[in-house]
């Protein structure tokens, strides 16, 4: 399940590894029933963190 909407926050299920999308009022839970979700890293083209290569 690849989610296209870039502005939404996407989570990854800790068990099945699928993408999960939640609304503010939703219960934190994957379709598989697992209740630990990781936040997915998003691309940040507008204001990317800059690192010095030192």
């Amino acid at each position, binding site marked *: 399940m690849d989610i296209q909407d870039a502005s939404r926050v996407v989570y990854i299920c800790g068990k099945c590894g699928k993408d999960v999308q939640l609304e503010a009022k939703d219960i934190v839970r994957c379709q598989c029933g697992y209740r630990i979700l990781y936040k997915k*890293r*998003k*691309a*940040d*083209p507008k204001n*990317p*963190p*800059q*690192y*010095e*290569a*030192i």
Partner: protein
Amino acid sequence: MYKYNFEQNTQHRIEILELNDEKCKFSFEGDLSIANAIRRVMIAEVPVMAIHFVDIIENTSPLSDEFLAQRLGLIPLVSSAADSKMYDWEADADSIDDQKTKVVFTLRQKNLNDAPLEITSQHLEPEFGQVGEMAIRPVRMFSPINGKEVGIPITRLGKNQSVHVRCHALKGFGKMHAKWSPINIATFRHEAEINMDQTQLQSLSLSEKNAIRNSCPMNVFAMDANQDLIVNAIEKCVFCEECIRSAESMKKPRLIKMQHKKNKYIFTVESAGQLKAAEIVQKALIVLRKKVDEISQDLNFAQQQQQI
């Protein structure tokens, strides 16, 4: 104790022993302080380009952002054209993003397959589209096994992992960070001087002579036609003093005398790929020359001021 010998050091001479793109070996006749100055400048003050700022737009690779930035920084960039660039502190604030000071590379890869994808320096794409021999680009690396071009590994991507970074390469020198140092090796050694006491040498038996010859791990000694022990390959000597130890075991401690030859130094310079080895030596001499010129200019200026 080091002493400057004014009479002997009037002439400096360089003789090239070995030369290719990666390696330059030459003997330098002249003063030690100048020899060391050249070595130090080669390591620390020859300007080249290297990636300094990294914008992490997306990174889901196993390596952390800082780690990735450091690895990108250490990729050697071909820098023959570095002279045409300015240091970013030399440029005024308006032209900071100008092509005068930097080269920008982008790296954008995503792995859609199950097999891991290796991201190498070949995936770095210059933004201003420079081409040709003088272009600033990552150095080419070839596999030692089959001679194919492989590139320098940066990271590996698993399935659906992606990396998108923008790298700003700036001009700098080795004193600021090791990534701006164009050398792998810049070293010199003093040539050895081995003197053998001929009267003691005559008293040795053939087997003893052979024992001394074989004691040397670098095969400096050889036998001549008269079965006499001679110094054959002095340039190989590494001052391990094994020959002296061998002579001592024959109760002849003063047979061999080993000294560092003054005024002659053998340099070995190995390039890291940014510049050709001979280019590094030349540029080091230019930097050194510039420093000396600056001093003499200042001195002239001070003298003029005093006269007024």
